[in-house]
């Protein structure tokens, strides 16, 4: 015969386990909700003034090409911010309904900075990577268009490193290597082959 105290202890323990389980599920749901990126359009450049020409390299999935294009947007005078504006504009073009190389909704460039005057660092948001289509070619088109656009607007850089939410990531969507840096000259060679 199990004593009453043991029975109470058992019931308390079971209740505790159930409670902890519920709490863990709630925590998981909260974390997922936090990670879920709101569907927002790319942030427009925070400047006013007359539109200025910026160079972007737009990918085309059907033709498997990268084409240079001039866009006219209000852009800051500071070079790194101009480069970020160009990348944001590139993403905006790729988010249009008629985009030739569509990116997932909510894709954004969080920041661009330069290290040691020659390494350009592009910090993408989680939605950019998570919603990107998977495949060597489709990922390569994205990387080449980003690197070429950055290099066109930041002439001093020789290498480009990609981060996602400020952290290193193995691949963009299962294929393109994001662990190492991209050599601008090598990417330019690929871009020429894709023209």
């Amino acid at each position, binding site marked *: 015969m199990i004593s009453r105290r043991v029975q109470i202890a058992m019931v308390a323990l079971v209740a505790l386990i159930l409670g902890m389980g519920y709490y863990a599920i709630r925590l998981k749901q909260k974390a997922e909700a936090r990670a879920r990126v709101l569907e927002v359009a790319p942030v427009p450049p925070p400047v006013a003034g007359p539109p200025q020409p910026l160079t972007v390299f737009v990918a085309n999935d059907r033709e498997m090409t990268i084409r240079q294009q001039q866009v006219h947007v209000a852009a800051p005078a500071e070079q790194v911010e101009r480069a970020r504006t160009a990348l944001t504009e590139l993403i905006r073009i790729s988010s249009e309904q008629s985009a030739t190389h569509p990116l997932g909704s909510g894709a954004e460039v969080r920041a661009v900075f330069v290290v040691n005057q020659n390494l350009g660092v592009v910090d993408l948001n989680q939605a950019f990577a998570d919603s990107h289509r998977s495949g*060597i070619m489709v990922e390569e088109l994205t990387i080449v268009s980003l690197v070429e656009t950055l290099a066109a607007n930041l002439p001093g850089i020789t290498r480009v490193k990609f981060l996602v939410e400020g952290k290193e990531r193995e691949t963009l969507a299962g294929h393109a290597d994001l662990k190492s840096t991209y050599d601008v000259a090598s990417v330019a060679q690929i871009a020429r082959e894709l023209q």
Partner: protein
Amino acid sequence: MRSKHALLWALAILTAVAVILLVPKRVRTAEPHRISVFSARSNYSIDTFDRDGLEYVGLIDLLEPMGRVEARTDGKRWTLSYTGKSAVEFKASDGERHATVNGKELRLPARFVLSSGRGFIPVSSVPALVRSMTGENLDWRPASKRLLVGNPGIQLNPEFKPNPSRVVLTFPIPASPAIRSDGNSVRLTFTREPVVSSGSDSANFTDPTIQAAALKEIPGGAEYVVRGSVPLTAQITDGGRTITIGAKPQTQAATTPAPASPPPAAVAAPVAEPPKPRFLVVIDAAHGGSDPGATLTEKLIEKDVTLALARRLAHELQSRGAQVTMARTADTTLTGEQRALAANTARASVYVTVHAAQLGQGVRVFTSAMPPSVPRPKTAFVAWEEAQSGWTDMSNQVAGSVALECDKRKIAVKALPAKLAPLSNVAAAAIAIELAPRDGETATLNASDYQQDVAAAVATGIVALRSQLEVAR
């Protein structure tokens, strides 16, 4: 006091239950084992998995290299169509212990398992099921988990020859066993060839040098052990068709009187054949296990297409005389480092990673975007991240040859450099193949005739450069 003990017991039981429930099943299962399949069409091995204490194997993995397979799932019901000698249909339901083959009832020793659109059967049911699906004679060796489909077995016919004492093995095709001298014995381990006994598995000799020999089944192969009273050695001659096991030359000189006349050349003064260059292609079916790769259609995921295409490519290369190793043969998870290691440790001539995607059409052949390095000695240390740098020219040649062959066969093709982790870490000619739909229809990615065309083109393109690749390696 008693209630305190009961409370402790209750706590211990609850903790144990919690641990069992919370520890992932993958951690609890044992390491995978393998079944080696030898058939007239292809030799391959597939991983088996522990499920509820029983060993299971994927039916698609088992049959696909021998014929054409198509699977469809309808709720819990799974149907597999296999076309080998004839068309056969296998039907089973998840959790049930019976299946049908062309409508004929087949009792399974344990439950049929359906997971992610793939059917798994208990290993103990493999012989009966493969026999009824393929209609071939089978030789199932449970100790080694070798399945010989048709009659591909190579019989071991050891012949004892005196003066000097030796055991001579002859094979109809070149054999390449792993040879290990262990004191006074020599072990020949056959894992690539379906070596089987021709009669008695063991023999005793009334000879002062060689005393006994035995063939036994070991996991994944067969082992022939020869024991003697002195250290023994094995020599491979005739391009791998003859293996001679006898006393080590120096031992023989020390233990036997000098012969009046020169001993037979094969043993006393063996003429070592110049090592034949090896042409090994490592094929890596990208993704697998917990990494599904791209979702191509609602029912088609990249990891399945890559494995199917990799198998076809392996078969096409083997039929053109290349040795082939596959980085994965079943739905297993591999890291990029493990894939590159598979090629580097095998000293591959060529590494091919196989991918599939929805975008575009035809085939894309990628090489590493890494710039070539300055020439350096083959023995020089190279950083892991730059392992490919000494091979970029050769990789580009292979990619060009494959692209040319695809073009000849009217398969749309594009060759480009790309930055892919395994390619950069491989010290061999290395390419990535990305299979795209034939004519914009994503479903064609899984079409066997299309995959076959692509596999044949890639294999022909690689083999066309065989001599250059052998020299480079």
